[in-house]
C-alpha cells in the first residue's frame, strides 16, 4: 500500500493549491459555501470566474481522452477537487464536468462530443439537470414529464423539481418519458436542451435559510432537437445508469471538513471564555479531536475511491459510503461548532457573527448533500442491496 503521491503529482498539487489560494482571496464577501454560486449574481460570477481560471489551465478536462482536449490524469482531477474543497471554491460545474462530460464520453455520439466537450472544458457553458419531479424523487421510474417525437424534434411538457441552478445555467440535460406504451426502463429518453428555449419557466424554491439554489422548472411545449439525444431514443434509462456510475469521490466535501476543523481549532485557540481559551475546555478538546479523527477516516476512504477510479474501477459502494459519512459528518460538524459558539451559534453572517457565520450556515446547509444526489436513505439501500447482497423486499 502506498499513500504517497509521485513527484509529478506533488508538483501539480503545489501548482493547483497556489492557484486556488489566489482565487480564495478574490471571494465575494457574501460567500458562505456550496450554495453561494447559485444564491446571488456575485456568487455565480465568481463561479464562472474560477471556472475560466481553471479552464485556462486545462483543468476542466482532466482525465478526458486526448482527442477531446483531455489533459492530466484522474489523480490530477482529484487534486483539483481537493484544493477546491480546502479553499471552498466553486469553478467546477458539477453537472457539466462531473456528470455530463463523462456520460458523453461513454455514451454520446461523436457529434455531441465534438459540440459540447470543448464548451464544457472552456467553461463556455454551464449545465443544470432536469431530473426529479414532484412525484418522482427517489423513485425516478415514476416520472411523467413527456417528450413526444415530432419530426426531428421532441416536444417536451412537464414539471421538473429540485433542480439546482436553472436560473443561471446555459444548458440542461434531462430525462423524459418518450414512449408511454413501452415497458418500464425502455420508455425514457435523455436529451440536452438550451435553457433559452421557448416554453421554459424557472421558479425558485427557497432553501430553509432563504438561499436560492433550487428551482421548479416548467416545460411547456419545449422543442428539443432530436440531435441532442444522448444514447438511443427510449433507452435513456441506460444513460441514466451510466451517469449514476460517475459518482464522485466527494473529496471536495471532505476537504471542506478538513478546513472546517482547522478553522475551529484556530478559533478555539484565539477566543476566550471565562478568561481561558476555549481550547482549554476538556469537552471541546474531546469533541474536536473526535471530529478530526472522523474527518481523517473519511478522507482516507475518499482517497481509496480516487485510487480505484484512477485505475478505472468504479468503487461505487465506497463512494456511497463517503457520501453518506461525509454529509452526516457535516451535519455533526454544524452541531458541534454551533454548540461551541454558545449563543453565537445561532448568529448569521454579519458583523455580530463568529467564524463568519459558517457554523450557522452549515447547521442548515448540511441537508443539501444529505438529501440530494440520492438521499442517504437511498444510498443505504444501495449499499445493502448491491454492496452487501441483501435481498430486496418486493
Amino acid at each position: 500500500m502506498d499513500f504517497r503521491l509521485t513527484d509529478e503529482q506533488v508538483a501539480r498539487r503545489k501548482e493547483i493549491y497556489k492557484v486556488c489560494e489566489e482565487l480564495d482571496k478574490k471571494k465575494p464577501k457574501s460567500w458562505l459555501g456550496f450554495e453561494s454560486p447559485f444564491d446571488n449574481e456575485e456568487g455565480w460570477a465568481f463561479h464562472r470566474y474560477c471556472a475560466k481560471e481553471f479552464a485556462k489551465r486545462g483543468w476542466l478536462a482532466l482525465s478526458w481522452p486526448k482527442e477531446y482536449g483531455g489533459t492530466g490524469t484522474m489523480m490530477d482531477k482529484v487534486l483539483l477537487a481537493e484544493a477546491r474543497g480546502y479553499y471552498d471554491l466553486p469553478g467546477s460545474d458539477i453537472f457539466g464536468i462531473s456528470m455530463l462530460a463523462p456520460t458523453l464520453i461513454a455514451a454520446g455520439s461523436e457529434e455531441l462530443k465534438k459540440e459540447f466537450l470543448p464548451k464544457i472544458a472552456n467553461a463556455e457553458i454551464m449545465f443544470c439537470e432536469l431530473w426529479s419531479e414532484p412525484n418522482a424523487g427517489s423513485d425516478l421510474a415514476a416520472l411523467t414529464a413527456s417528450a413526444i417525437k415530432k419530426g426531428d424534434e421532441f416536444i417536451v411538457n412537464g414539471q421538473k423539481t429540485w433542480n439546482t441552478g436553472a436560473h443561471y445555467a446555459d444548458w440542461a440535460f434531462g430525462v423524459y418519458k418518450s414512449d408511454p406504451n413501452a415497458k418500464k426502463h425502455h420508455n425514457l429518453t435523455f436529451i440536452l436542451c438550451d435553457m433559452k428555449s421557448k416554453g421554459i419557466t424557472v421558479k425558485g424554491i427557497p432553501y430553509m435559510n432563504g438561499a436560492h439554489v433550487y428551482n421548479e422548472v416548467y416545460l411547456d411545449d419545449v422543442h428539443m432537437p432530436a440531435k441532442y439525444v444522448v444514447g438511443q431514443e427510449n433507452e435513456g434509462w441506460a444513460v441514466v445508469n451510466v451517469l449514476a456510475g460517475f459518482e464522485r469521490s466527494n473529496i471536495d466535501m471532505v476537504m471542506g471538513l478538513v478546513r472546517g476543523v482547522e478553522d475551529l481549532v484556530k478559533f478555539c485557540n484565539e477566543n476566550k471564555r471565562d478568561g481561558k481559551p476555549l481550547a482549554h475546555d476538556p469537552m471541546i478538546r474531546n469533541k474536536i479531536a473526535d471530529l478530526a479523527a472522523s474527518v481523517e477516516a473519511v478522507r482516507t476512504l475518499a482517497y481509496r475511491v480516487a485510487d480505484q477510479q484512477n485505475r478505472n474501477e468504479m468503487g461505487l459502494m465506497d463512494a456511497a459510503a463517503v457520501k453518506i459519512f461525509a454529509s452526516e459528518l457535516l451535519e455533526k460538524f454544524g452541531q458541534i461548532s454551533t454548540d461551541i459558539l454558545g449563543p453565537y451559534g445561532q448568529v448569521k453572517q454579519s458583523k455580530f457573527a463568529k467564524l463568519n457565520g459558517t457554523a450557522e450556515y452549515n447547521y442548515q446547509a448540511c441537508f443539501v448533500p444529505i438529501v440530494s444526489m440520492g438521499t442517504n436513505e437511498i444510498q443505504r439501500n444501495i449499499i445493502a442491496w448491491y454492496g452487501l447482497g441483501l435481498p430486496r423486499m418486493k
Partner: protein
Amino acid sequence: MDLRFTEQQEILKKSARDFLTKECPKAKVRELEKDPKGYDPALWQKMAELGWLGFNIPEDYEGMGYSFEDLNMHIEEVGKNILPGPYISTVVNTFAIVAEGTEEQKKEFLPKISNGQLILTLAWLEENGQFDASGITLKAAHKGNDFVLNGTKMFVDSAHVSNYMIVIARTKDGAGEDGITAFLVDSKSAGLKTEVIPTIAADHLCEVVFKDVAVSAKNVLGKVDKGWAILQMLVRKGSILKSAESLGGLQAVVDMTIAYSKERVQYDRPIGAFQALQHKMSDMWISMGTSKYLLYEAAWMESEGMPSAKEASMTKAYINEAYKLVSALGVKLHGGIGTSSDHDVPLYYRRAKAADTVYGSTDFHREMVAQQIGLK
C-alpha cells in the same frame, strides 16, 4: 397520582390552539420573521384581551392568577403553533416583578403587562456568551442613590420593541454571584441603543449598548447586590417554559412527519410503509414521550412551590437535545421538500437551534444537574 390534564387545562390548550390557528397561521409566522418589529401589535392586543399576558399575574394586579402548571400547558400549545415575538420572554420576566417587586413596582408594571401595554425583556448575556455569574460585567456605578449603567448586552429578546428591560448588572467589583443587581430599565432611556442581530430563527434578538444610562434607585428589583438569585429564578422558570414551547414544536414535527409519510407515495407505496423510516418515526415518538412527563413533572413541582432546580435543568438539557434531534429527523424524512422554507418543518428546525441557548445551553444545565445530584 393523576397524570392526565385537568379539564381546565384541556380548555386552555384548546383555546390557545384555536386562537393561534386562526390568528397566527404559518404565513404570518413567515411574514413576522421579516418584519422589522418581529411581532404583531394587533395580535398582542388580542392576546392581552384573552388574558394571555396576565396568566401569571395575581388578580389584584389585573391578571388571571393561573397556576404555573396551567401556564406551562398553554405555552406547549403556543410552541406547537409558533408565535413570533417576545411573548414567552415577557411572561417569564413578569415573574421577577411578581416575586421580587415592591408594591409600587407591582402596581406600576403588572397591570400594564397584563393589558398588553408593556413588553418586558431581559438583558442578561454579554459578548462573552457565558451563562454563569462571571459573565456579568456590565457595570452599574453608584451615583448617589441612583445608578449609571455602562456596557453591552447581547441576545436581548426584542429589545428594540420592548418598553422595559430587566438588566442584570454588576454593582460591585468582582466576578462572583454577590454584587450583581437586577434593574428595571426603560428601553427608551437616554444612552441606550439597540440593534437587531440576524439569527437562525429571525427572532429579533438584539445587541443593547448602554452608555451612561441613568437608572433611579426605585427601579432596583429586589436588593442591591443580590440580583443573581432573581436571575436564577428566571432561569429556572424560563427553562421549564421554554422547554414547554420546544416540546410543542417537537410534537408538531412528529405529527407532520407521520402525516406526510402516509401521503407521500414512492415506489408505489406510502413512504411510511418503509421500515427504516418507521423505526425513525418510532424513535421520534419515544423522544416526545420521554420529554413530556419530564417537563410535566418539573412544571408541577414548580407550580407546587417544591424545589425544582434539578428537574428544571434536566428538562431543559433533555428537551434541548430532543428537539434538535427530532426536528433534524423531520427534515430528513421529508426529503427535499423538508429543506425548503416554503415548508413548515424547517421553521421548527431553526427554532430548535434558537431555543437551545435560551435560559442556558445543554452543557450549562447539565452542569447544574451535576451539582444537584451531588457530584462534588
